């Protein structure tokens, strides 16, 4: 008799792959893109990803002494900003499922002299290895769309958030304006070519384009957060909805 799990498939971009293989496929993508990750972010976002991340950090409303999880934090962009905000009494945990990305993040933070309040964790967002009620804030920036079981990841995030704490999901979303949507579609068709030129890898950026298309839209993701148990869920469109920042809280 065929195993039920092995007959289940999920999307990897536009491809259908067995559920248990998606993480491996995604892993290959990020092992490949890790060295040029930030540069490619600049290319595909026309430099705006830095401002968007900065604004996301502001929405985290961190205070000295707090504990924050930078989930799927990869190269450490956000951890770099979180560290001075939580101060010496606070903690930043930089977590990623991909060893190459995590190593880059750690090296980068060390190069910037950020060491005292940051710890590193090789962690799967669906099975977070932290105790319940650990974090004042969890932020997952441009990571959720790569997770195989997003609902499981959201439930895991809720579990490890402190009562009253918040989770932020920054991710590509659906532009609200049809003209912008068409312009953005046309622009994103160039990404695999840019990936070829900048990082010597067009397939990974083809996956990037496709994974954005397959990701839930604003209202769908908000509902997923509500279904996972978050309260006061809302979202902020950025760049006309090209990206969105979803915020949800754990009830006290």
């Amino acid at each position, binding site marked *: 008799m065929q195993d039920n799990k092995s007959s289940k498939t999920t999307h990897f971009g536009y491809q259908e792959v067995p559920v248990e293989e998606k993480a491996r496929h995604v892993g290959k993508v990020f092992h490949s893109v890790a060295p040029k990750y930030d540069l490619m972010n600049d290319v595909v976002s026309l430099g705006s990803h830095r401002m968007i991340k900065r*604004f996301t950090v502001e929405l985290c409303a961190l205070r000295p002494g707090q504990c924050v999880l930078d989930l799927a934090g990869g190269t450490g962009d956000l951890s770099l900003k979180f560290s001075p905000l939580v101060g010496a009494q606070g903690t930043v945990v930089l977590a990623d499922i991909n060893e190459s990305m995590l190593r880059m993040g750690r090296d980068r933070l060390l190069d910037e002299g950020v060491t005292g309040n940051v710890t590193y964790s090789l962690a799967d967002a669906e099975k977070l290895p932290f105790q319940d009620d650990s974090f004042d804030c969890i932020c997952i920036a441009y990571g959720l769309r790569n997770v195989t079981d997003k609902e499981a990841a959201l439930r895991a995030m809720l579990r490890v958030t402190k009562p009253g704490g918040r989770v932020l999901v920054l991710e590509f979303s659906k532009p609200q304006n049809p003209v912008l949507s068409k312009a953005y579609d046309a622009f994103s068709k160039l990404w695999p070519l840019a990936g070829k030129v900048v990082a010597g890898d067009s397939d990974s950026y083809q996956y990037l384009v496709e994974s954005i298309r397959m990701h839930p839209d604003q209202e769908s993701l908000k509902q997923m957060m509500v279904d996972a148990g978050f309260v006061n869920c809302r979202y902020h469109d950025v760049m006309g*909805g090209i990206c969105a920042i979803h915020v949800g809280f754990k009830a006290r």
Partner: protein
Amino acid sequence: MDFQLLTTAALTLAETSLKQVLAQDSAARTKLKALEGFSLEIHITTPDLKAYLSVLNGEIKLNAYREEPCDASITGSPASLIKLLVSTDKTAVIHGENLQIAGDLQQTQALQSLLADLKLDWEYFASKIIGDLATQQLSDMFSQASNWSKNTAENLTEDLDDYLHHEKRLFPSSPELQHFYSDVDDLNLRVDRLRARLDKAGQGLDRILNKNGSGTKT
């Protein structure tokens, strides 16, 4: 939300510049240490915009978003706020202009004095923030109901059509095409008639040639 993103970009510019200037001014850094932890809400009345200044780890941070209340707040027009930073008689500015200050006045004045002494081009930063925010019209358009985009798309298509046909004359217009087809039809008819006449003339020539050939006497 794009409004706040633009504000974030402008504030980042100011924050980075402040950091660079402070790095070269040890006296200012010493004064800033005395203000560690101080936070100020800056409310610009036109355009309606709030920014938040805080002193954290010896640096000045500028945010577009903040949840915690600030130690003090200052409200005024861009011109009034700029004067606060460039005028030599600061007391007169505070009391004379349309400025409202609430909260910790002493630390607010200490900060104002520090910033004014830095001799930064505050008018440039203000113009950057306000100039960038003038483009919030773009973000307003993006967030409007689909009517705008639908109308714009339709108008764009019509305008583009007109442009390509009449302005650039890259493509013939429909009436021009119809006229052309009509000319082609007319030409076809004339060619057919000419062919018919040639055929008839040919047949006549054949008859003449045959008649002469058969009537040849020896």
